[in-house]
């Protein structure tokens, strides 16, 4: 029952927030809506028994990505700005205009037909299995840790290279022009 409630709440949160991201005028609000959506997905993970993933989702996204986004929004002016190419019937300058929305929605709808076909055939080709209740209850943490250090150790290591590179790169790009110090960061996240 709890699971069901969680599922319903998460679903509603996810989808509703996603729609807000799509339709909200304020970019700041959109960021926060994304936060909601991500939290909702974390909830869905929980209903699927993926506790560690849910936790990571919350930590990385909520603690990292969305905050970054908010910073970026604030650094780039925080709210709406008036575009030089603003059209008369723009909903809001920052958000897009009627044309772009119709294009976006038509594309999404067309693409949705692919997704629909894909999902439908996937569904019908997967045999319905009973889910091992133990699997739901048991924490995945231990097994994930083991997998990460055995089967997927390479991916684990390479991702550190990726993160290292990304950090250095982000630092290079974002640092002020005249600064001479290159604060190379060797620490790894996670």
């Amino acid at each position, binding site marked *: 029952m709890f699971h*069901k409630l969680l*599922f*319903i709440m998460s*679903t509603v949160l996810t989808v509703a927030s*996603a729609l807000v*991201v*799509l339709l909200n005028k304020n*970019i700041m609000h*959109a960021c926060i809506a994304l936060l909601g*959506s991500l939290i909702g*997905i974390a909830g*869905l*993970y929980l*209903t*699927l*028994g*993926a506790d560690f*993933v849910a936790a990571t*989702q919350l930590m*990385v*996204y909520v603690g990292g*990505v969305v905050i*970054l*986004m908010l910073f*970026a929004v604030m650094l*780039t*002016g925080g709210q709406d700005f008036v*575009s030089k*190419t603003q059209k008369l019937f723009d909903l809001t300058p*920052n*958000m*897009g*205009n009627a044309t*772009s*929305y119709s294009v*976006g929605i038509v594309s*999404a709808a067309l*693409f*949705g037909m692919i*997704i629909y076909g894909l999902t439908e055939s996937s*569904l019908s080709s*997967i045999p319905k*299995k009973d889910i*091992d209740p133990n*699997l739901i209850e048991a924490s*995945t943490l231990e097994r*994930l840790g083991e*997998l990460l250090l055995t089967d997927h150790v390479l*991916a684990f290591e390479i*991702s550190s290279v*990726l*993160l290292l590179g*990304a*950090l250095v*790169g*982000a*630092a290079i*790009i*974002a640092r002020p022009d005249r600064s001479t110090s290159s604060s190379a960061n060797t620490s790894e*996240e996670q």
Partner: protein
Amino acid sequence: MMMSLASYLVISAFLFLIGIAVILSRKSLIAILLGIELILNAAALNFVTYSRFGSQDLDGHIMTLFIIVVAAAEAAVGLAIVIRHFQLKETIHIDEVSQLKE
């Protein structure tokens, strides 16, 4: 029934499509990054779902973990570039990002 494979897949598909709509509709660079996050999350959700209903191993979870990590890195780099661009051009409107063409 409600928490079946189908419902998860539909949610993720919906999320995915909203992501695409966001990417194509909104004119702020940051908003488009948000859309990308939505798409990535839709995929990640699928992985976990299939991990549960399909193969029943944890490879899906591992995939999702790495997706989250990579998305974080991508967001960091992307926002850095966006900010750099903003410093140079004083705009993050997507239509202004079209000096390079033809």
